[in-house]
């Protein structure tokens, strides 16, 4: 089998806030035998504009992403919502436009959320990380409902030596992030995050694991504000590559 050439879409939040997750994704893709490149001019997938009704700016950024990534066999992002943007919404941005639509659809078909790619495309069998403690997994909305990411992260976490997975109740209920919703309706968003944090604590897990930076900042921010300094909030890529 020829080597898979993967373009890593780092995502704007990983780039700005948690670069270590980008490196963890890189490590996992290489562990799966991929040849990984990181286009340096990449910025944002356009999702904030798309979700806020700013179609023109979303479209301009979508063109940029398509041009930067269409040369790879696959595009992988450590985020369900960014991968979901490219996979399910780019075609809506270019609806009715022959050439751009074809390019958008071609890219959509080769774009994956990280754990989905590792399990279903690269078929990663062994993960480099280890973790001592219990984990609970929060299903991020876009990954779950736009891309069907549910079993994949759990299958990978099950391979991590020392890690025990325990399910919280309502793991599929939104944490309240919702992009600009978290700022426009801060009070409601924080109340939703609080409900999620209570379920996480009730699960008794040492760490909540998830696949999207938005949920991560939201949940971690609420845990810390409510005085919980102990429950860790980790991206799935961090756990899969964690060093003992």
């Amino acid at each position: 089998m020829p080597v898979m050439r993967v373009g890593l879409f780092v995502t704007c939040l990983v780039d700005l806030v948690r670069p270590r997750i980008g490196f963890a994704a890189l490590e996992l893709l290489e562990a799966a035998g991929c040849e990984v490149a990181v286009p340096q001019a990449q910025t944002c997938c356009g999702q904030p504009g798309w979700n806020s009704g700013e179609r023109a700016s979303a479209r301009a950024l979508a063109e940029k992403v398509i041009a930067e990534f269409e040369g790879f066999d696959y595009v992988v992002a450590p985020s369900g919502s960014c991968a979901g943007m490219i996979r399910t919404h780019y075609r809506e941005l270019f609806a009715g436009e022959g050439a751009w639509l074809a390019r958008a659809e071609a890219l959509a078909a080769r774009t994956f959320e990280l754990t989905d790619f590792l399990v279903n495309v690269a078929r990663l069998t062994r993960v480099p990380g280890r973790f001592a403690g219990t984990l609970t997994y929060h299903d991020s909305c876009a990954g779950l409902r736009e891309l069907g990411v549910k079993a994949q992260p759990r299958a990978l976490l099950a391979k991590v030596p020392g890690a025990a997975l325990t399910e919280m109740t309502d793991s599929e209920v939104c944490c309240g992030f919702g992009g600009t919703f978290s700022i426009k309706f801060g009070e409601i968003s924080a109340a939703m995050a609080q409900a999620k944090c209570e379920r996480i604590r009730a699960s008794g897990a040492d760490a909540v694991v998830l696949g999207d930076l938005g949920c991560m900042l939201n949940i971690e921010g609420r845990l810390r504000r409510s005085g919980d300094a102990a429950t860790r909030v980790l991206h799935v890529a961090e756990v899969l590559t964690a060093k003992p």
Partner: protein
Amino acid sequence: MQLASIHFKQRASGALANERLQGNLKRFGSGFADKRAAARAAYGADAFDELREASAAIRDRALADLDAWLLRFEQEATRRGARVIWAEDAAEACAQVLAICARHGLKKAIKSKSMLSEEAALNDALAAAGVQPVETDLGEYILQLAGEAPSHIIAPAIHKDLGEVSELFVKHHGRPRSDDIGAMTREAREMLREHFLSADLGISGGNFLVAETGSVAIVTNEGNGRMVTTLPRVHIAITGIEKVVPTLEDLSALNRILPRSATGQEISNYFSILTGPKRAGDADGPEQLYVILVDNGRTRLVGSALQEMLRCIRCGACMNHCPVYQTVGGHSYGWVYPGPMGSVLTPAFQGLENALDLPQASTLCGACHVACPVKIPLPDLLRTLREMQMERGLRPWAERAAFCAWAFAARRPWLYALATRIGARVLRWMGGRRGMIRRLPLAGRGWTLGREFPAPEGRTFRELYRASGRQKA
């Protein structure tokens, strides 16, 4: 009902501060959603999803030729002795009901649940004209005593707890207080019985209109619908024009999906297909049957980017699965229809400028779309409304400016790299030793009111990657 959707944020804030309401919302929690999930599993998940697909197709077929199916309905209903009246808006609907009251000298109306009558504020119009309206659905009855509007389209008093209802009953029934649900229900039945027997008008909604037979179909659980539509000498069914379906076969498919999606029931306790008034020799039924078909903004959606919303069969699954609705309750939405379906319908019926927050008040988590029995892409419709708001300049100036600035930078990698490099460092510094930012300025305040903002690591991925020497190109 008075439109107050423009105040969503203040109303939601009040709802969050109301401990009793919060307790009631938590108790309601995922009850209906769990029941729906169990009903779906019992039906077979794949078969259920096929039924959703088929139901959406049925609704689309009806909407594609809405005018033709409505005329067919009118023709068939008229042929069977009903009188069909068209009302363009809420005011006309009320005027038509009052005209019927005047024509037949009607003084007391018993009502079964009708969201359209809420849209038209029909009770106020009846009372003002000297016709006493009595709600007979238990939830609606409770709210009529309380002087409140429904907070959920199928469980109108879901925001109230047992204690609140007990207090209302003591106040209005003048009987000793009871906290036993069975006893309280019996008490309400006794109170309502007298109204059932003395009313000369029954007003119901209509879950579906069947074009091929001219029938009105009603789905209820308490039996009050039967009384309302058969006991008084005049029955008025008042409903939105989008409720029409072509055939009884279509009705049967939709009646499999509706109760399962709403309450998780295989079938509701009562399911009535009302075709024409009482005929010679019939044991019961109204002497006169009127069907008022109300537009009130619906035809504006036909052929628009929001047409899929007209598929809605009013099951409430979207609000039962909506984490925002579960957090702030139905009254926050400020009009008849709450939750995701209300966030589309309210701006669509009442004007985009009168419900500015509603299309924004969603995390677009998609739970509503997955639960919808007729597969209405609610998140997409909310996004479409957001686009309309942008196009019509209805978003704040600062928000638009921020998006322009962000898009400008994101298309210029050198500028973006510089801005994020500075941003990461400033935010890192703001996070201090804990790495948590307690207070962000400007729009970021919305975040830090109830949460810390976890500070960045300090250098961007881009910088670190370049420094690692791995860059090939």
